[in-house]
């Protein structure tokens, strides 16, 4: 402790005697270490903590008396500890801001008591006790004679076995250890410190100056020296301050903060007291933390600075790395400034090749320089012009024109103006802002690949085609599937170069570049960057290149990039779809010779890549249309006949995406594609099977297609694929196909033959929702058959179905209710459903917000009510259930209305329930619905009305609510079901004379007379009954008249 304090602590220069400790970071570290030592002393060494110091440590304290609590006797002006020494003297005594402490125990407690002031207390203590060790242990232990220290201690140990002495010894050793610890701390601290010197600081300032000024883009508003005079050593501080290591003072005005007065010293940069007004004097006192350099300091002080600076950051660090190899490690600051400067030089140099190109220097002399300019010349020229103009402004950012992605994009945009008139949405501009943030993070901890890739990109930029090819090939050796490498390529500006390479005449470079782009475009961020940099139109152009390898690679890259909407749009707008479809049109000779050249590859491969890209593109509706219009379907159909799996997957994938469109399904049918889809269901490739099943699922909406699937023997493979449940995606697709296929009765019979029903029941548990929806949908269709209902019940399918009624997935609920309803047709199954409380669950689904679910639940309730024992009692047991149903008649969804009418028909079979719903106002609600053209609703409405007539004066009420006249018109419908239901309703209504009159007035008799001739017996009967009622009334009237 002694040595450390004497030698290393930074005492102020004002004489040894009354010296004070300066508040430097180093001293702070030392004090903190000492505090930690003292604080833990009482716990780590309880025995030694009681040791009484030879002399008390005495200093002037700022602590309040109130800071001392338990363990102290506090009077008005003094505090003394309860703990006393042998002689009864307190071990801590405080009087009028003088404090005396005589043990480590008390010191520890004091540190606790001091709380936030502990640092100042420790400082005061050390300042007042320049040699604490002597005071604690006595003069024998003076630290100045360190060599003999150890001997001394040994000596003492040998001499005394006094316990007090032993403690002393222990403390001496502890203090020695602390001393060593402090020394090592100091060393570490010093090694961390970077000393600034005038030259880099000056460069730093000049650089910042040149980027300062008015406007949003600059980093600062202004930065100035306080003094214009510069001493020969580069400092501007007055000599008496230079002694303290200060070099110059600055007035900095950031965009978003007050002007700052800053001292640049050897230790670092800090805020000083500022200029005292009007005069030239500066308050030199440090007012804030010390930062390692000006940039760090300003970043801390001004958010705007840090933001604008970060835009430059990559550039600077890039340059920094560039020269790292050939420069001996200099001081950090020098580096940053130096590189940034050389960066500007370099960007000027980069333009040189353009001049060569323009001046048409002989090809022979400069072959390496102008080969890539040929095409790109236009862009480059404009960028040169830009940067020259902007250099006058002296703004750092502008010199980065050739690198910054945003600018390149702009340049390219202006180059081909024709494109993209559709405005870019706001979300896209957000995307643009995202990358810089990310880059900044990436700077934090850069892997070694980053630097290697940066070097390679440098060669890509500055090399001729030979060097470029070598660099490209070497880049491919990195693990391009790894995000670090993908982002590294982008962050060092590699994407721009790679994309620019695509625009040259050099086929080999294009191939190399695409091979890399193809890999890194698996990364979603990179995809966006590629689109932002205008890579897609170039790649689309390459699709019409004469070289097959190029076409393939471009298509594959497009396949990766076009994974998001905007990219797909760009592909379409640049005619990519037509060109991709053209790639599919390969000559069908499989006997092509193996190609010896880099540029050639097999036609099949070209078609495969085209299909791959189309698959990605086909996720947008407009692209589906474009593919169809470009004649893609027949080509896809032809490719479907091949047997290469890697060809079939993208082809089927594309078809499957497109089959969501009606006119595709028609085309698919016309091109006889189903046959091949079915064939490929038998493939060994799970992915292929999945896509085929998915395509069938999409197409089987159509009845003819469903029959085709059966005729081509597709049902058996589908059924057998059900048994493999590991691959959930495939299972979902297969069950989907089965669901849609089972809409046709013949298919259901086939499925039963293949024992698919049992398997489906087995799939009702432990499957993801996507699978469940389809499984339940399929069961719902299958259960329309009696045999299948029996199978489902026997396999225990009803319980899982009912338990699925509590789910929340809407699609699933629609299917489950349908399946449960189908099962409920069977009285034996109904018993099970009833026991499981399935009806209540169905009923509660009437409250589901989605109309499809409501309707489906209401439909399912019908057979339940029909087949349940004591149905009336059961229905009444649902509190508020009947009111709920009646109120659903207020819905405006036709399907819901139809289903609820059907439910009401069944409910009304029970007289008591009919009474209840009548009370809830079912009659006016039904009457209101009467004016409809929907045959389904008409039928169920008529049935409901006919049922509801059975109670009280409901018949009259229907007449009063004007339900009769519309009903008569139902007889003109073309649907016999409507006729039957209507005739029955009219028959019921005709029991009331007023209704008869209304019917007669609306010409019901003639219509009903026709119905009497119908082959449908019930209809005949009802129509005849109705006519007879009308006739009887007429007769009675006549009779009355003549009497």
């Amino acid at each position, binding site marked *: 402790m002694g040595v450390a304090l004497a030698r290393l602590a930074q005492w102020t220069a004002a004489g040894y005697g009354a010296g004070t400790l300066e508040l430097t970071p180093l001293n702070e570290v030392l004090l903190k270490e000492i505090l930690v030592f003292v604080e833990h002393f009482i716990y780590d060494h309880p025995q030694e903590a009681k040791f009484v110091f030879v002399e008390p440590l005495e200093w002037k304290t700022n602590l309040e008396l109130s800071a001392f609590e338990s363990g102290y006797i506090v009077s008005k002006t003094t505090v003394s500890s309860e703990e006393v020494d042998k002689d009864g003297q307190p071990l801590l005594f405080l009087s009028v801001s003088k404090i005396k402490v005589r043990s480590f125990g008390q010191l520890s407690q004091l540190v606790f008591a001091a709380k936030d002031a502990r640092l100042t207390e420790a400082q005061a203590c050390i300042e007042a006790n320049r040699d604490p060790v002597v005071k604690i242990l006595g003069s024998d232990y003076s630290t100045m004679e360190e060599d003999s220290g150890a001997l001394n201690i040994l000596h003492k140990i040998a001499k005394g076995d006094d316990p007090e002495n032993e403690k002393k010894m222990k403390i001496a050793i502890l203090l020695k250890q602390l001393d060593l610890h402090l020394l090592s701390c100091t060393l570490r601290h010093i090694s961390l410190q970077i000393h600034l010197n005038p030259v880099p600081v000056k460069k730093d300032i000049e650089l910042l100056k040149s980027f300062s000024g008015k406007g949003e883009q600059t980093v600062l508003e202004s930065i100035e020296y306080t003094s214009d005079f510069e001493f020969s050593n580069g400092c501007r501080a007055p000599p008496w301050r230079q002694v303290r290591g200060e070099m110059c003072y600055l007035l900095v005005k950031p965009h978003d903060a007050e002007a700052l007065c800053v001292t640049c010293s050897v230790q670092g940069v800090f805020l000083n007291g500022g200029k005292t007004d009007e005069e030239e004097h500066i308050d030199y006192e440090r007012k804030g933390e010390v930062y390692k350099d000006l940039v760090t300091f300003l970043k801390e002080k001004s958010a705007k600075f840090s933001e604008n600076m970060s835009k430059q950051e990559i550039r600077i660090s890039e340059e920094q790395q560039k020269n790292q190899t050939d420069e001996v490690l200099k001081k950090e600051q020098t580096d940053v400034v130096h590189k940034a400067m050389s960066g500007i030089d370099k960007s000027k140099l980069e333009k040189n090749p353009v001049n060569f190109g323009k001046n048409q220097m002989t090809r022979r002399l400069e072959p*390496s320089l102008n080969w890539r300019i040929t095409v790109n010349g236009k862009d480059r020229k404009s960028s040169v012009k830009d940067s020259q103009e902007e250099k006058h402004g002296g703004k750092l950012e502008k010199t980065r024109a050739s690198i910054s992605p945003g600018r390149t994009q702009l340049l390219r945009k202006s180059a081909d103006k024709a494109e993209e008139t559709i405005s870019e949405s706001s979300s896209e501009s957000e995307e643009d802002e995202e990358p810089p943030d990310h880059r900044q993070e990436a700077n934090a901890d850069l892997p070694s690949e980053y630097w290697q890739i940066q*070097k390679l990109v440098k*060669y890509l930029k500055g*090399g*001729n085609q*030979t060097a470029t090819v*070598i*660099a490209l090939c*070497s880049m491919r050796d990195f693990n391009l599937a790894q995000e670090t490498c993908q982002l590294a390529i982008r962050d060092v500006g590699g994407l721009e170069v790679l994309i620019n390479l695509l625009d040259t005449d050099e086929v080999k470079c294009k191939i190399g570049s695409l091979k890399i782009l193809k890999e890194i475009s698996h990364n979603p961020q990179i995809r966006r960057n590629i689109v932002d940099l205008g890579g897609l139109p170039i790649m689309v152009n390459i699709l019409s290149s004469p070289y097959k390898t190029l076409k393939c690679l471009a298509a594959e890259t497009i396949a990766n990039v076009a994974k998001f909407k905007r990219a797909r749009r760009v592909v379409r707008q640049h005619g990519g779809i037509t060109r991709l479809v053209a790639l599919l049109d390969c000559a069908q000779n499989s006997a092509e010779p193996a190609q010896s*050249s880099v540029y050639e590859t097999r036609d099949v491969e070209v078609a495969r890549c085209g299909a791959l890209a189309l698959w990605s593109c086909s996720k947008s509706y407009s692209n589906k249309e474009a593919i169809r219009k470009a004649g893609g379907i027949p080509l896809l159909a032809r490719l479907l006949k091949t047997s290469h799996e890697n060809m079939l997957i993208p082809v089927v994938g594309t078809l499957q995406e497109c089959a969501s469109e009606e006119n595709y399904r028609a085309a698919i049918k016309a091109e006889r594609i189903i046959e091949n889809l079915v064939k490929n269901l038998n493939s060994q490739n799970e992915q292929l099977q999945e896509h085929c099943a998915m395509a069938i699922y999409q197409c089987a909406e159509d009845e003819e297609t469903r029959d085709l699937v059966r005729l081509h023997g597709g049902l058996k493979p589908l059924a057998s694929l059900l048994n493999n449940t590991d691959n959930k995606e495939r299972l979902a697709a297969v069950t989907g196909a089965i669901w849609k296929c089972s809409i046709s009765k013949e298919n259901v019979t086939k499925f039963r033959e293949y024992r698919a029903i049992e398997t489906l029941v087995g799939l009702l548990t432990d499957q993801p929702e996507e699978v469940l929806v389809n499984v339940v949908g399929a069961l719902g269709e299958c259960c329309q058959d009696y045999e299948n209902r029996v199978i489902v019940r026997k396999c225990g399918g009803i319980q899982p179905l009912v338990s699925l009624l509590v789910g929340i997935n809407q699609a699933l609920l629609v299917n489950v209710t349908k399946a449960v309803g189908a099962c409920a047709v069977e009285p034996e199954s109904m018993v099970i459903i009833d026991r499981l409380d399935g009806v209540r669950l169905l009923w509660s689904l009437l409250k589901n917000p989605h109309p499809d679910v409501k309707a489906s639940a209401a439909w399912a309730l019908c057979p339940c009510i029909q087949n349940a024992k004591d149905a009336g009692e059961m229905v009444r047991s649902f509190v508020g259930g009947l009111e709920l149903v009646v109120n659903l008649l207020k819905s405006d969804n036709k399907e819901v209305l139809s289903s609820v009418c059907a439910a009401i028909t069944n409910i009304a079979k029970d007289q008591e329930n009919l009474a209840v719903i009548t009370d809830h106002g079912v009659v006016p609600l039904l009457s209101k619905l009467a004016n409809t053209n929907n045959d389904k609703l008409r039928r169920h409405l008529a049935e409901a009305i006919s049922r509801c007539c059975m109670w009280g004066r409901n018949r009259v009420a229907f007449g009063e609510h004007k339900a009769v006249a519309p009903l008569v018109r139902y007889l003109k419908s073309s649907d016999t079901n409507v006729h039957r239901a209507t005739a029955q309703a009219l028959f019921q209504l005709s029991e009331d004379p007023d209704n008869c009159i209304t019917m007669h007035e609306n010409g019901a008799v003639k219509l009903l007379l026709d119905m009497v001739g119908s082959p449908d017996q019930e209809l005949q009967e009802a129509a005849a009954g109705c006519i007879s009622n009308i006739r009887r009334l007429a007769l009675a009237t006549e009779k009355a008249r003549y009497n």
Partner: protein
Amino acid sequence: MNRKKLQKLTETLTKNCKHFNKFEVNCLIKLFYNLVGDAAERPGVPIGLDRNAFRNILHMTFGMTDDMIMDRVFRGFNKDNDGNIKVTEWVNGLSLFLRGSLEEKMKYCFEVFDLNGDGFISKEEMFHMLKNSLLKQPSEEDPDEGIKDLVEIALKKMDYDHDGKLSFADYEKAVREEALLLEAFGPCLPDPKSQMEFEAQVFKDPNDFHDNMNP
């Protein structure tokens, strides 16, 4: 040259030539004599294309620019090393140049790159061939630094047995893995575009080509 002689020559050459048919050989022979031009008439001077004439063709027709590589290509054609490409060498050379299999091209390219013919492409040879491939940057202390680095990169990529030089086995393995490395140290084969143009012109209507070459 009379018709009979030409026919005979065509037949012999066609027999030995893998990649051209008789018509094509005929075209190439005609082209050759067109190019040689008047020189053929002078007695005592061997009939053929000298280094400069050949380099001129490489430059004008196939867009080659690198002096050293063109010299090496000339040596590749000039099998008997007499500084003069004769009609046989012309046809055989072009056969490989335009239609060679990957194996043939690898062998040829390796010979082009192996400057001293010792069976290895050494670091020095690579350096020599790549020395103009990078844009010189005055800011760098050692202007050759980049080239040296590039050589190391190439070596890292292709030197499978880690002996610090490329044997043919190394080179072949690298090319089979990455076909772009066939012309790793400089373009010594025609680029596909000029090749197509050349073939289209020569084999379609040699007279046209002749007219273009000697306006």
